[in-house]
C-alpha cells in the first residue's frame, strides 16, 4: 500500500521536473514561444492546456481497450479537439480578452505534441487514475515553465509583471524581448541554464525534438 502511494506521487511529480515537457522533453515549442509575451497570457494558456490534457488523458485511458490501433491517431485528435472546443467556448464567453490575446494558439492545442505525446506514451497504457495524475503533473510543469519564461520576457520587455509596474522609472525596457527574437533567445538561454544545472547534478540527458514521428525521422537521418 505504502509503495503504491509513492508511485502515485512520483507520477504526479514526474512532469514537473524529471520529465518537464518544455525544457527536458522539448515538446510543444510553438505555443511556448508564442504565449510567453505576457504573464497573463501564459497563465491563461497554462490553465486551458492543463484542462485539455487532463480531460483527454482520462478519456483516452477510459477508451484504451476500445480504440483500434490502426486508427488511434484520428481518434485521439477527435477527443482532444472536442475538449479544445469546450475550452474555446468557455473562454470566449467569460474571458474574451484572453481569448483574443491567445488567438489561433487556442485551437492549435489540438496539434500540440505534448498532449498527443502523453496520449501515445502514457494514457493508452495506464489506468484512468494514473493518467489523470500524469496529466495534472505535466500540466503543472508546462504552466510553471511558460509562466517563468513569460516573467523574464515581460519584466525585461515591458518592465511589468502581470500588468503591474515593478521596475523603477528609469528602467530602459528591451522591446525585443516581447517580440519574436526574444522568445527564441529566452528559450535558448533558459534551456542552457537547465543543461548547466543538469551537468552540476550529473544528470544530463540528450535532447531531441519531441514529436514522435519526427524522432523516427531524426534517427533515420543520424544512421
Amino acid at each position, binding site marked *: 500500500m505504502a509503495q503504491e502511494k509513492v508511485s502515485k506521487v512520483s507520477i504526479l511529480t514526474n512532469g514537473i521536473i524529471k520529465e518537464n515537457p518544455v525544457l527536458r522533453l*522539448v515538446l510543444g*515549442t*510553438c*505555443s511556448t*514561444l*508564442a504565449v510567453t509575451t505576457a504573464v497573463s497570457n501564459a497563465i491563461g494558456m497554462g490553465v486551458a492546456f492543463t484542462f485539455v490534457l487532463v480531460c483527454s488523458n482520462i478519456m483516452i485511458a477510459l477508451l484504451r481497450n476500445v480504440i483500434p490501433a490502426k486508427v488511434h*491517431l*484520428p481518434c485521439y*485528435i*477527435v477527443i482532444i*479537439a*472536442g475538449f*479544445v*472546443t469546450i475550452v*474555446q*467556448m468557455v473562454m470566449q464567453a467569460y474571458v474574451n480578452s484572453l481569448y483574443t490575446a491567445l488567438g*489561433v494558439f487556442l*485551437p*492549435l492545442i*489540438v*496539434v500540440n*505534441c505534448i498532449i*498527443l505525446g502523453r496520449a501515445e506514451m502514457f494514457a493508452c497504457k495506464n489506468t484512468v487514475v494514473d493518467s489523470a495524475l500524469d496529466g495534472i503533473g505535466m500540466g503543472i510543469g508546462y504552466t510553471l515553465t511558460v509562466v517563468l519564461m513569460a516573467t523574464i520576457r515581460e519584466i525585461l520587455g515591458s518592465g511589468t509583471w502581470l500588468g503591474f509596474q515593478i521596475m523603477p522609472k528609469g528602467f530602459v525596457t528591451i522591446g*525585443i524581448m516581447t*517580440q*519574436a*527574437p*526574444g*522568445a*527564441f*533567445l529566452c*528559450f*535558448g*538561454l533558459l*534551456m*542552457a*541554464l537547465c*543543461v*548547466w544545472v543538469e*551537468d552540476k547534478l550529473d544528470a544530463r540527458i*540528450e*535532447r*531531441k*525534438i*519531441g*514529436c514522435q*514521428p*519526427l524522432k523516427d*525521422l*531524426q534517427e*533515420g*537521418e543520424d544512421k
Partner: protein
Amino acid sequence: MFVKLAAIFFSMILVNNYVLVKFYGICPFLGVSKKLDSSLGMSGAVIFVMFMATAVTFPIQIFVLDPADLGYLQTIVFILVIAVLVQFIEIFLKKYMVSLYNALGVYLPLITTNCCVLAVTILVVDDYGADVQTLGFAVAYIESLVCAIGSGVGFMLAMCLFSGVRKRVEVCDAPGPFKGLPITLVAAAITSLSFMGFGGIVENLFNVTL
C-alpha cells in the same frame, strides 16, 4: 487586384513569416532543418498540403459551417479534414505519382500534427472570410489560396536559410551547456531578428494597406 495578391504573397513570406515571426511549425523547423535536402522535402510537402487543405476547408467554412451556424465546430472539422486529406494524398501519390511520393512520402505523416497547416486554414477564414460578402467568393477564395502558398513558401525560406545557419553553428565550439539545442535556439533568435527588418516593406513596396 493583382497588386493586392502580390502584396499578400510577399507579406506572408517576409513580414509574417510563419516560423520565425509567428511561431507556427517550430517542431519541423528545429527537427528537420539539419540538411538542406530534407528541409526542402519537408517544406515541399508542407506547401502542397497547406494549399490542398485551404482549398478544401475554406469552401467548407463558407458554404457549410457558416450557413448552418456551426462556426464552433471549426476546430474539429478542420483537423479531421486535414487528417483525412493527408492520408488521401499519401495513398494517391503512392499509386499514381511515384516519383513525387519518393520525394515527399516520408514527410507526409508528420504533417497532420504540424501547426502550420491547421493555423493557415483557421487564419484565412479569419482574414478573408469577410471578403466573401464584399468582393464575392471567387476573389476571397483566390486570396486565401495565395495566402496559403505564400505561408508555405515562407516556411520553406525559413527552413532553407536555417539549414545553412545550422551547418555553421554545428561546427562551432559552443560553451558546454549551450551545445546542441540551446545554441540552435539562439541562432534562431538571430535569424528571426533579421526578419524583423522586413517590417513595413510590403506596404511601401506595393502601396497598399493590408
